[in-house]
């Protein structure tokens, strides 16, 4: 196998442009691949004050004109942006004398560019499906949703391999697009442990801004929307307070905020439940380190990165047994799993963790070990590199080679 493996990563978001989980994913994956000696180009959308070309941690980043004129709607904008992305990537590929081995696309947002480039340069295309329109919308209800779904189907059809971040997503994607099993491969999402290790060990003063010394901290991080199950946690609060003195810290925002605040007020628990909104990264990292328990009560979760972050921060996790969370958490070993959408079960899990210090210590240590073994970006980059090499081995026997 040649050692100058080159990959052209296509992603609609890359830091400092952060819209969702794809941006940090592509950043850490690209950086870790570069460490493995892979030459990585990232082609992404432009962002105010970010340069159109720069090298970040060994990764060559090109930011393209993302079509800034008004577009009729989001989906049409995506296709117009792809026109620019494809044009500029084609020019770049020609400039480097076609010295690339694979195109790697992330989600339907770069489908057109990825598919067109594959055929124009006759190089293999891989895709990571982070999510699906069916999953996001709980079905396909409008023409736009159907169009996006069919674009996803087209992308997975054209791809040599389809990477998903959990077994749950593998099953879902296989069913949603009717793909053969040998086309799908699971590579978990990674989590960065360094950012937690860099934090000062003494967080006593920091902690006192949020809770009294005798109060345990229960942390929720996520959008305040139905699928995240935050209402289940709020309903569990009085049941938990019967058994243990705790402060509930809610980080994030969303359309359910007012409704949730009203419930907390009607229970007379405003002094126990703090809504912090969005927090800056450092504050969030510190809170995750301080938390006596981190709660992920989601009803739908393709992966569940927030559970992994808590594990990396050495905060014990209580999560609902659903989607990707079911795979991340091993019950009684790396965390506690509870029934989804069930406040009694959730209260039981949180109480169990808060009342038993030895148990807490044990699952924290196990969880941190698991993160290092399975969700380390270096290992994930190695797996991804192996997938590229496997695809290139198959490609070398095809008439395109």
């Amino acid at each position: 196998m040649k050692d100058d493996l080159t990959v052209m990563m296509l992603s609609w978001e890359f830091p400092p442009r952060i819209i969702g989980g794809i941006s940090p994913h592509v950043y850490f994956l690209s950086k870790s691949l570069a460490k493995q000696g892979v030459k990585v180009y990232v082609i992404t959308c432009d962002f105010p004050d970010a340069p159109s070309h720069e090298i970040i941690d060994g990764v060559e980043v090109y930011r393209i004109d993302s079509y800034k004129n008004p577009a009729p709607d989001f989906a049409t904008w995506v296709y117009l942006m792809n026109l620019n992305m494809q044009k500029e990537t084609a020019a770049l590929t020609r400039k480097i004398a076609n010295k690339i081995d694979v195109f790697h696309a992330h989600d339907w947002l770069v489908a057109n560019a990825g598919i067109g480039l594959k055929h124009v340069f006759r190089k293999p295309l891989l895709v990571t499906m982070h999510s699906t329109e069916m999953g996001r919308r709980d079905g396909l209800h409008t023409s736009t949703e159907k169009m996006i779904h069919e674009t996803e189907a087209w992308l997975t059809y054209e791809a040599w391999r389809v990477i998903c971040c959990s077994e749950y997503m593998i099953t879902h994607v296989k069913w949603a697009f009717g793909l053969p099993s040998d086309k799908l491969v699971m590579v978990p999402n990674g989590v960065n442990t360094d950012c937690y290790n860099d934090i000062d060990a003494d967080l006593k003063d920091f902690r006192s801004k949020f809770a009294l010394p005798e109060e345990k901290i229960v942390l929720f991080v996520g959008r305040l929307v139905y699928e995240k199950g935050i209402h289940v946690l709020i309903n569990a609060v009085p049941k938990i307070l019967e058994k243990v003195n705790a402060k509930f810290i809610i980080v994030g925002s969303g359309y359910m905020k007012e409704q949730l605040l009203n419930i907390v007020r009607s229970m007379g628990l405003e002094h126990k439940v703090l809504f912090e909104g969005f927090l800056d990264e450092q504050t969030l990292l510190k809170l995750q380190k301080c938390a006596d328990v981190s709660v992920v009560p989601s009803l739908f979760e393709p992966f569940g990165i927030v559970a992994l972050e808590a594990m990396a921060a050495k905060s014990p996790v209580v999560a609902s047994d659903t989607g990707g969370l079911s795979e991340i958490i091993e019950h009684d070993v790396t965390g506690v799993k509870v029934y989804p959408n069930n406040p009694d079960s959730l209260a039981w899990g949180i109480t169990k963790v808060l009342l038993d210090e030895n148990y807490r210590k044990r699952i924290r240590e196990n969880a941190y070990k698991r993160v290092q073994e399975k969700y380390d970006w270096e290992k994930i980059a190695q797996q991804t590199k192996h997938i590229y090499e496997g695809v290139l081995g198959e490609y070398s026997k095809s008439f395109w080679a």
Partner: protein
Amino acid sequence: MRIIIFSWEYPPRVVGKLSEYVKALSTQLVASNVEVNVVTYDDFFTGSAQEPTGVKTVRVSNPVRTHIGVLTWVLTLNQEVERAAANIYYQAKKQIDLVDVYDWHFIPAAVTLKNGLGIPFVYSVESLEDHRSPNTNTSYNMAIKGVEWLGFYEAEKISVKSEWMRDEVIRIYKVPKEKIVVISTNPTSWITEILKLYNSTSGGLKGK
């Protein structure tokens, strides 16, 4: 000379006047010893890839069935046009002299092929969005005008059928006059003029 023509209509698919025009042009070019590949849209009226006239046609269909407008329909169809054109390119051992693209629909594919493979293209103007939808500047129309602008900017040469159209292209898109060639459909000079245009375009990207 080996060329590829992009047109979103070609017989038996007839939407406007373009279809019969491209057919007549292709047939005449074949008679003048040009290898003509037409890449067009398959609306399921035909299956044959080889026309009796000697024109090679590839008909592509849209990989995405559901659409919310002509714009999304066109933008997803372009990758299939690229696939068809790339197949012709690689089968011809990368010897394609130029692409001649009719109207805005397949400009994205022509632009990608130019930037990625160095195949120059002629943008042949049949009509403009500004005339088709006068006095409308919705984001939808502006996006189509944006694609037309990209075509004028990236094209090696622009071909129009009348001096009026040449002046309109200059007025609306500020294209330099030297880039535009007026070729009337006068039967005595038509094909000669087209061949002259192709010859001046072919190899236009070499050394760039």
